[in-house]
C-alpha cells in the first residue's frame, strides 16, 4: 500500500449523503460519509471498479466542514437514529492508520451520543483508534471464508485477524457489526460458511453484535465483462440474471436458498441476532425471514431503530 497515490481534494458540496440504494430493493437508510474515495484493497469483485473511474485514492480532510455536514443531517432528522458509515466508496480502515481521517469523526460521534458511526472494513487495524473509540462507533468487518479471501480479497486482512479486531473492539466497549457481503456461491461454499459462522461464534460475543448483514454478490454490467476477461471462475460460478435495477444478481430462487441457510445458521448461534438483507427485494425478505412487515425501506429503518433502542435504550 506504500506506493498508493493519495490525492487531497477540497470538499465542495456535500460528502454526507443518503446511501443511493437501488430501485425495487429495500434499503436500510444508511448515511454515507465519503471521507475517502477509492480503495487499496482491490478485491476482485469490488463495485468501485464499476463506479470510480480514476485509480488511486482521494481524501477529504476538511474535518470541521464534514462534521458540520453530519450535524446538519442529524439536526434535520427527528424520527430515526441516524447511522453513518465511511465504507461506501472506500474501506473505512484500510488507509486510516496512515491518513488518520477517522479519529476526529469518531470523537464527534462519541460526544454527540445519539447517531451512530459504522467503520466497515476488511482491514483489521483499529489500534490507532483505541484512544477515541466509544460505544457510538460500530466496528464492522466483512467476513467470508478464508479460501475466498485468499482468492478474491488478496490484499485484505485474514479472517483470523478480522475476528481478533472484532474481539478487541468488543473489549474496548464497542458494539460490532458483521457483514456477510458479498456472499459468493461456489462449490462447497455451504460448508465453508458454516465453519466461518462457527468460528465467529467461538471468537466474539454474539450478544454484542448490533447487526449482521447478508448480501449475495451483485454487480453492474461492466463488471461482468471484467470478470469474464479476468477469468473469474469462482465469481461466475453461480447463475446470474439481470435484475430490475439492471445489476447482475444470482437467480432469486438461489438467493432465497442461500439466505435461508445463512439466516438459520446465524440465529441458531444466537437467536437474538438482528440479521438484515442488504439491497434485497421485499419478497425475498419475506421468503427468508418470514417477516411480512418489511415491504419497503422505511420498514427496515424502523427495525434498525428498534434494534438500536435495544442496545442503547431510549424511546
Amino acid at each position: 500500500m506504500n506506493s498508493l497515490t493519495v490525492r487531497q481534494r477540497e470538499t465542495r458540496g456535500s460528502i454526507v449523503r443518503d446511501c443511493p440504494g437501488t430501485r425495487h430493493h429495500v434499503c436500510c437508510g444508511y448515511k454515507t460519509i465519503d471521507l475517502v474515495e477509492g480503495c487499496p484493497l482491490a478485491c476482485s469483485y469490488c463495485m468501485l471498479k464499476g463506479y470510480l473511474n480514476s485509480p488511486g485514492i482521494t481524501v477529504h480532510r476538511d474535518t470541521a466542514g464534514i462534521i458540520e455536514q453530519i450535524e446538519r443531517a442529524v439536526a434535520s432528522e427527528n424520527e430515526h437514529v441516524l447511522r453513518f458509515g465511511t465504507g461506501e466508496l472506500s474501506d473505512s480502515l484500510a488507509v486510516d492508520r496512515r491518513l488518520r481521517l477517522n479519529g476526529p469523526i469518531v470523537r464527534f460521534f462519541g460526544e454527540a451520543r445519539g447517531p451512530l458511526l459504522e467503520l466497515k472494513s476488511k482491514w483489521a487495524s483499529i489500534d490507532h483508534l483505541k484512544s477515541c473509540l466509544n460505544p457510538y462507533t460500530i466496528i464492522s468487518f466483512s467476513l467470508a471464508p478464508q479460501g475466498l479471501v485468499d482468492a478474491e480479497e488478496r490484499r485484505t486482512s485474514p479472517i483470523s485477524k478480522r475476528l481478533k479486531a472484532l474481539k478487541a473492539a468488543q473489549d474496548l466497549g464497542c458494539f460490532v457489526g458483521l457483514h456477510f457481503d458479498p456472499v459468493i456461491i461456489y462449490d462447497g461454499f455451504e460448508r465453508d460458511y458454516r465453519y466461518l459462522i462457527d468460528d465467529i461464534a467461538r471468537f466474539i460475543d454474539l450478544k454484542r453484535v448490533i447487526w449482521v448483514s447478508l448480501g449475495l454478490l451483485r454487480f453492474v454490467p461492466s463488471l461482468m465483462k471484467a470478470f469474464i476477461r479476468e477469468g473469474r471462475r469462482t465469481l461466475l460460478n453461480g447463475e446470474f440474471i439481470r435484475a430490475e435495477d439492471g445489476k447482475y444478481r444470482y437467480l432469486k430462487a438461489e438467493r432465497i436458498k442461500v439466505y435461508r441457510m445463512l439466516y438459520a445458521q446465524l440465529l441458531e448461534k444466537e437467536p437474538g441476532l438482528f440479521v438484515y438483507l442488504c439491497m434485497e427485494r421485499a419478497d425475498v425478505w419475506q421468503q427468508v425471514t418470514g417477516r411480512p412487515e418489511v415491504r419497503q425501506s422505511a420498514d427496515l429503518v424502523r427495525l434498525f431503530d428498534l434494534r438500536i433502542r435495544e442496545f442503547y435504550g431510549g424511546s
Partner: protein
Amino acid sequence: MNTIGIDQVDVSDRTYCISYPLEDDLLFSSIARFGILVPLGVLDREPPVIVTGFKRIEAARRLGIATMPCFFLDIDDRQALLTSISDNLKRPLNTIEKACCVERMEARGFPKEDVYEIARLVGLPARVETLKTARAMNSMDQSTRALVARQNLPLPVVEQLLWFDAQELARIVRLVDSFRSTTSFVREVLHLFALLKTKTGCIDFHELENAEDMEALRQSLKRATHPLLSRLEDRLEKIREASALPPHIRVQVDPVFEKEAIDIQVRASSVAEVEEALKKLEALSRQGVFGSMFELTHGTPERN
C-alpha cells in the same frame, strides 16, 4: 487527371487500404453501368501505389476494365495514410475499417492525440484498450473479420471475440456464421460462449454444433451456463401447456423469475367474452395453474 492501366499497379499492395471487404455490389453495378467516374489516388512511384480507390479497382478487375482515371499524388507515407482515411470517412465504416484507421496510424507513430482524434471521428472510444483491440483485430483470421464486417459487430462485441483462443474462435465463428441473425443475437450468443468458457474452463462444441438455428444454439448455451434458470423455464412451459390457455388470455411471467407478480391480459370485445374469460381464469386458478406459476416467481419452486 491521368489514366493508369490495372496491370501497372500492384493491386495486392494494401499499405493504404482501409476498406474491408473490397467487394461492393452497389459500386460494382454503378461501375458496370457508368464506368469509373471518381479517379483513383495513386502515389507517383515505380510501381505506382494505390492510396484511394481499392474498391473501385476491385470492381474494375472483376469487370475486366483495363484502364482507370487517376490522380498522381506527391505526398509522404503519413500523408498518404491520412488521405486514405479521409477519403473513406465519406461513408459509414464498419468496425474492421474503423480499427484499421487507428491501427495504421499507431503503427506509423502518429502522436497519440492524433490517433485518438481519428478514433473519435470514426466513433471508437479514445482509450488505450481501443488501440490494443485494433492491433489484435489486425491479426484476426479472414472468416472472423468477415463476420465482424458482415454483422457490423460493434467494438465491445469484437472485444468479446478476442477472449477466445484461435481454435475456439474459428469454431464459434463457423457456428455463428452459419445462421442468419441480428447483431444483438450474435452479441448475446458470444456472451454466453464467453461465460461458458469462464465457468467451465473449456467449451464442449459437440452438442452446440448440432444446433439447427441461432435460437437453438442460444438455448443450448443457456442450458449450460444457466441450468437452474433453464429448468424454471421448462417448468413454466409445462404449466402453460397443461393449462391450455386460450389465445385471448395471455399470462406473462418475468423471463428471469425476478418479479413476483405475473401479468394476466384478457382480450375481449363484448361482455360475454369478458365473462367467459373470467370463468376460464377462475377454473385455471382452481386447477392451481397460477399457484404453480407463483411458486416459480416467488423463488420457491422446491415446494412443488
